C-alpha cells in the first residue's frame, strides 16, 4: 500500500501540486498497479542485461557541422513570459 505520506513525497519529487482528493485517488491507484507488478518481481532475472532499445540499431553519428536550424526569435515565440530573447522566471537565488 502506498500511503498518503509516500504520495506527498512522490508529488514533491515530480513537482506536482495535488489536491487532497487527487492524493487519495493516486494512493489507491498506485497500490493497485504496483500490486500487479508482484508477479514480475518473482521472475529470476539474474545476470540479464536490462533492455532499453528494443530493435537492433547501428550506431550513427552525424557529421559535426554548423547548420542553421531555428532563430532565437522562433525559439522564444512560445514563451509564457519573456524579456527580449530571454525567458522570464521567478528568482532562483
Amino acid at each position: 500500500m502506498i500511503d498518503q505520506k509516500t504520495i506527498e513525497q512522490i508529488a514533491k519529487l515530480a513537482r506536482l501540486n495535488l489536491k487532497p482528493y487527487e492524493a487519495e485517488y493516486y494512493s489507491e491507484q498506485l497500490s493497485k498497479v504496483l500490486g500487479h507488478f508482484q508477479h514480475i518481481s518473482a521472475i529470476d532475472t539474474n545476470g540479464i542485461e536490462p533492455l532499453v532499445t528494443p530493435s537492433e540499431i547501428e550506431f550513427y553519428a552525424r557529421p559535426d557541422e554548423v547548420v542553421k536550424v531555428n532563430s532565437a526569435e522562433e525559439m522564444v515565440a512560445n514563451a509564457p513570459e519573456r524579456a527580449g530573447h530571454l525567458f522570464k522566471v521567478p528568482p532562483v537565488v
Partner: protein
Amino acid sequence: MDLLKAGFKEVKDAVTTKKISAVEVTKFFLARTEKLNPKLNAFIKMSDTALEDAAAIDKKISQGETVGPLAGVAFGIKDMLCTKGLRTTAGSKMLENFIPPYDATVVTRLKNAGVVVLGKLNQDEFAMGSSNETSYFGKCKNPWNEDYVPGGSSGGSASAQAARLAMGTIGTDTGGSIRQPSSFTGIVGVKPTYGRVSRYGIVAFASSLDQAGPMVSSVEDAALTLEVICGHDKMDSTTSQKPVPEFSKNLTTNIKGMKIGILKEYEKGVLHPDVEKTYRASLESLKKMGVEFVDVSVSLTEFAVPMYYLISASEASSNLARYDGVKYGFRADFKDLSSMNLDDFYSETRGQGFGTEVKRRIMLGTYCLSSGYFDAYYNKACQVRRMLRDQYVEAFKKCDAILSPVTTSPAFKLNERSKDTLAMYMNDIFTTSTNLAGLTGLSVPFGLSSEGLPIGMQLTGSHFEEQKILNIAYALESVSDVKGKTPHVF
C-alpha cells in the same frame, strides 16, 4: 472519381493528369469535415493553409515539375506530431497554445511527397489512454455508432479516417494506440518496427516504445504511406539505416506456404464471443489460402501489461519533466514572479496543466525511478523486457507472423470504462508486447460484431518484417466482412 473510396494511387494519378485538382480534393474533405466533425470531434484544429498548400501542388503540376508519390492526397495528423505554424497540443491543456517552429520528420516527409495537411486530430492527453476520453479537447466519437468510443489514444485519427474526413491519417503507437482504435473503427493501422520511423518532432511519451504509423482505409494505402515515412533520419539516432522496401510494389495476396504462429498464451484469453468468432473466421480464411499454422510460445506476454505500464510511466515521468512553465506551454497564473519560490512555480503549473491520467502516470513513473525503488521496478522490468524480446526472436524462427485479436472486445461505450482503470489497462493485453519487444504490428478489419461494430485482427511481425504482415493483411482484406461496409455517417 468517388473520393470517399478512392485510394492514394488513384487520386495521385488523377491529380497529376489534371482530372481533378489538389485544391478540389482538399475542398471536398474540408467541406466534409465541416459537416461531420461537430458530431465526431475528430479534428481539433484545421490548417489555415490547406488550400494554399494544395494550390502549390497544382501549380507545380501545371508547370511540369515533378511531384511526390502522394501528390494531392489529403491527410489529418495526430496532435502528437509537430506541424510548423499549426497548433500542436498532444491533447493537453499544457500545450493549448503551442505553435511549433518546425515540422516533425514524418510531416516533412509527407509534405515532400505531396500530401496536403488538413488539420490536427484529437487524442488522449499525451497519448495516455485507450478511449480518447482523457483529451483536454473533449471526447471523440466512433462514426459507426456515436455512443461508442473510437478507441485510443489515436482516437481522432481513427474516427476521422473511418468517417472519411481525410484520405489518410497518422497515429502514434506506444502500447497499441494505432492498432486498437483501427480495430474499433474498421480501418488499417500499422505500428512499424521500433527504429523504422523517425520520432523527431513527435511529442515524447515513452521514447523506447513510441512509433508513428499510418491509419488508413486499405493495406495498399498503408504500404504507400510507409514507403514515404520510414527510413533513417539524422535527427533521430534511434532510426535504423536499413533500406526501406517498396512495400506497395511487393504486395501480394498469394501467401501460400507462409507460416503463421498462434500464441498458446493468447488462446486462453477471455474473448468476447464476437471477437472469438471473427478470430476463428480469420483462421479459416487463412487455412483456405494455404498458410501453415505453427504453435508458438511467448510465456512472458502474460506480464506484458504491468511491464508496459511501469516502463512507459517511468519514461513518461522523465520526458514530461520538460513541461515546467518556463520556455513554452501553460504557466499557472502568478500575480508576481518576484515573490515566488521556483519549486512552487513548477508544481503549481504542472498541477494545473496536466490532467488526471497524465498525473497518475507521472506519479507511478516517479515512484519507480526514485532512489531505493529503481532496481526493484524499472530495472527489473527492463530485464524481463529483454527476456520477452528474446522469446519473440525464438518464436519468429518458427513462423513469419503471429495472428491474434487486437483487443478482447469490440469498441466499448463512452464512459463505460473510464472509472475502471484495470479494465482499461487489460484492454491492452494483446498489443503492448509488440512495443516492448520493438516488433511491428498491424490491425486489419475483418469482422463485424452483432451490434454492427468492426473488429480487426492483429498481425505481429519480426523486426523490420513489415512486408510479411502487410501481405498477410492484404490477403485477409480481400475476404474481409468489413470490405465495402461503411459507418452510418456515410
